[in-house]
């Protein structure tokens, strides 16, 4: 066979030990802001990142909406009102703590990022006079121009700015290292977290990190149900390497999770039916406010939440009569009447009325500022749009004053999927947190998308920064504990085991991922029953027993991909365990039991939590509002921050 020389040294089995006061796992948005926060508290901070921190993570290539900035000077909505709306919108199945932090501190973080060099206002006066621009502050808003809670931002500038700030603060950044496990005191499940292990994704070297406190910022699981071996990187909305390692390693040491039974019918997979995000005709997110026309040029009307047809473009950005405010974007899928914003009439109804397919997004008739904001700013600054959409479409001749862009399906997802094709999307399950963003494990904090019911850039930045403060306070009181040799040796054995196998007779990461995904589609799809779930669990356990020991990887990069799939296997089992514990159906959790179709009663409306103790699954419950009064509790835990020392 034709061979090539691996371009990096191979250091399998070699060890490097690194010590930190505060250890940050993941150099995405939450991780970077956590690191900055802890370093400003005087802590020695180490960040471990699988990719390259400078532009890694879901927000690395950009972001155009900063949501829930309730404390910005133009906002007419309070943090309490906004968080309550998010809770109500999900019938209480939402993370009151983390979203309150987002609403309360998000704007502080945006100002912080501006100081680091990020662009958050129209300093070049390109949009003077636009309906969405506040002339005094030059801030630009999206969606509800009356209430001004979501900002339009130049997000391509953010991650590089954070990276420079981290360098300036002397934060040690360890790139190209995959965190593979968490270390605990004496190596026991449920004990204090005292560090982590890692694998260098190019050299295969083994890392042992020791820390006083640790912040989990590894995003959320993916590729559980959706897999394509040809287009692995396009299977899901979030980056290729964000597949839930953090959940799996947290589970193994006894961290507590909730809402893991929630999954939604797939909304987005460009390895399947979706088109590139923000790259097909639609009128959501970056494209909100665009006109939609049929193939004869006839416009589909917008209506407000009460069905009143809107005559002007301006009205698309205003609340309905008697409505306090409306919400769109990130965490809002199927809005309740209270916060429902303007929307085009249902496409199905339009077809019955004789409108002709295909439909198109039409910017040609919008006011010039609106058109330039959508095409050029939002499409350009939004993640994954600068090069693959904005520049490439422009090169291919797309002109927003002349051309209209075809819609595929309805909504931003540009596709519809089968019921068993599922994703953890919107506000899925994750780590359970308290008011310090601490998990149930001493010394282990969590922030960003890995928290239960969490989403969005501003949320990640503000929870990251917040966790950084609280993890620093913990680090100030506690010392370093030497990792347990048995635990690190066992981990070494686990991660290098596949290298010993014979490639001729072993299977690779793609085959295992596909096997898991098909199992999850078959036994933990939309239609759930104890019989199916238990059968699926048995298959996954057999994979763990028989298939995992028979896998192979050619090099450190493939070994990383294989270890990721082992984590996908773990997370899949967590999802089945959580599903087994929820006994009735729940619309808001998109949880459909065919052996008990009865919708949940008031008694069932609780958070089900699960964790491992002595390697057995332990379930518990919490009331949906376990976090108590938002404002009171926030203030109780954050006197320090509120004393005007925001940047300390």
């Amino acid at each position, binding site marked *: 066979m034709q061979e090539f020389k691996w371009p990096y040294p191979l250091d399998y089995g070699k060890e490097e030990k690194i010590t930190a006061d505060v250890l940050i796992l993941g150099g995405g948005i939450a991780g970077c802001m956590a690191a900055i926060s802890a370093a400003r508290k005087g802590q020695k901070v180490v960040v471990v990142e699988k990719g390259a921190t400078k532009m890694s993570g879901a927000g690395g290539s950009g972001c155009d909406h900063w949501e829930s900035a309730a404390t910005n000077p133009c906002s007419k909505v309070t943090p309490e009102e906004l968080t309550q709306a998010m809770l109500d919108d999900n019938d209480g199945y939402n993370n009151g703590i983390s979203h309150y932090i987002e609403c309360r501190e998000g704007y502080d973080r945006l100002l912080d990022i501006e100081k680091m060099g990020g662009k958050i206002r129209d300093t070049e006066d390109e949009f003077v006079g636009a309906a969405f621009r506040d002339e005094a502050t030059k801030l630009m808003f999206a969606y509800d121009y009356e209430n001004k809670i979501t900002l339009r931002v130049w997000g391509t500038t953010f991650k590089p700015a954070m990276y420079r700030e981290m360098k300036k603060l002397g934060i040690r950044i360890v790139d190209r290292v995959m965190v593979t496990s968490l270390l605990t005191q004496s190596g026991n499940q449920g004990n204090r977290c005292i560090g982590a292990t890692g694998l260098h994704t190019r050299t295969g070297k083994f890392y042992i990190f020791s820390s006083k406190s640790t912040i989990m910022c590894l995003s959320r699981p993916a590729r559980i149900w959706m897999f394509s071996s040809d287009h692995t990187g396009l299977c899901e909305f979030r980056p290729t390497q964000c597949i839930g390692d953090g959940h799996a390693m947290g589970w193994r040491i006894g961290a507590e999770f909730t809402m893991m039974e929630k999954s939604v019918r797939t909304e987005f997979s460009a390895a399947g039916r979706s088109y590139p995000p923000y*790259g097909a005709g639609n009128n959501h997110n970056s494209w909100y406010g665009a006109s939609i026309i049929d193939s004869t040029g006839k416009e589909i009307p917008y209506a407000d939440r009460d069905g009143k047809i809107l005559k002007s473009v301006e009205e698309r950005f205003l609340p309905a009569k008697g409505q306090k405010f409306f919400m769109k974007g990130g965490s809002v899928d199927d809005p309740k009447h209270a916060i429902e914003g303007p929307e085009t009439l249902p496409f199905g109804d339009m077809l019955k009325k004789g409108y002709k397919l295909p439909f198109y997004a039409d910017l040609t008739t919008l006011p010039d500022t609106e058109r330039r904001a959508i095409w050029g700013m939002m499409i350009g600054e939004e993640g994954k749009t600068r*090069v693959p959409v904005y520049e490439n479409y422009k090169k291919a001749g797309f002109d927003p004053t002349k051309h*209209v862009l075809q819609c595929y399906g309805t909504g931003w997802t540009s596709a519809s999927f089968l019921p068993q094709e599922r994703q953890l999307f919107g506000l899925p399950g994750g780590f359970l947190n308290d008011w310090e963003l601490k998990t149930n494990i001493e010394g282990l904090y969590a922030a960003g998308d890995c928290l239960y019911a969490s989403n969005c850039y501003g949320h990640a930045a503000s929870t990251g920064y917040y966790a950084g403060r609280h993890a620093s306070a913990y680090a100030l009181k506690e010392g370093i504990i030497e990792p347990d040799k048995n635990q690190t040796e066992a981990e070494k054995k686990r991660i290098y085991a596949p290298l010993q196998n014979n490639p001729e007779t072993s299977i690779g990461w793609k085959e295992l991922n596909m096997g898991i995904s098909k199992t999850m589609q078959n036994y933990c799809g939309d239609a759930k029953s104890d019989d199916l779930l238990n059968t699926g669990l048995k298959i996954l356990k057999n994979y763990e027993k028989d298939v995992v020991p028979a896998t192979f990887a050619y090099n450190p990069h493939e070994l990383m991909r294989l270890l990721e799939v082992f984590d996908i296997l773990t997370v899949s089992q967590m999802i089945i365990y959580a599903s087994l514990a929820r006994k009735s159906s729940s619309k808001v959790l998109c949880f459909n039991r065919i052996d008990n179709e009865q919708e949940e009663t008031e008694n069932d409306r609780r958070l089900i939590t699960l964790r491992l103790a002595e390697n057995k699954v332990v379930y518990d419950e919490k009331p949906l509002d376990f976090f108590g009064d938002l404002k009171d509790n926030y203030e109780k835990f954050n006197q320090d921050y509120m004393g005007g020392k925001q940047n300390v």
Partner: protein
Amino acid sequence: MSENQNMPYTEMPASKPIVIDAGKCTGCNSCVEICMVDLFIPGPERGKPPVVLYPGECWYCGCCVMVCPEEGAITLRHPLMNQAHWVEKAELLK
């Protein structure tokens, strides 16, 4: 047409997200270092283009193109199945 019977041990990939123009690329490896997916490896020869080793893992974020110092050296292209269509509005109104 070549009648050379020597074949590479490989097949055409399902898609080619990245195309590098060897004439413009200086082999600086900035793209290799920024890609969070790490789908490239540096080319075997200094000053020559990197190798796209794992094209199927591409997330299509465009960061590699954003950091490339040589205009036009690297191109990101959506797979054919994901290429959206547009038309001139005037055509629809005809």
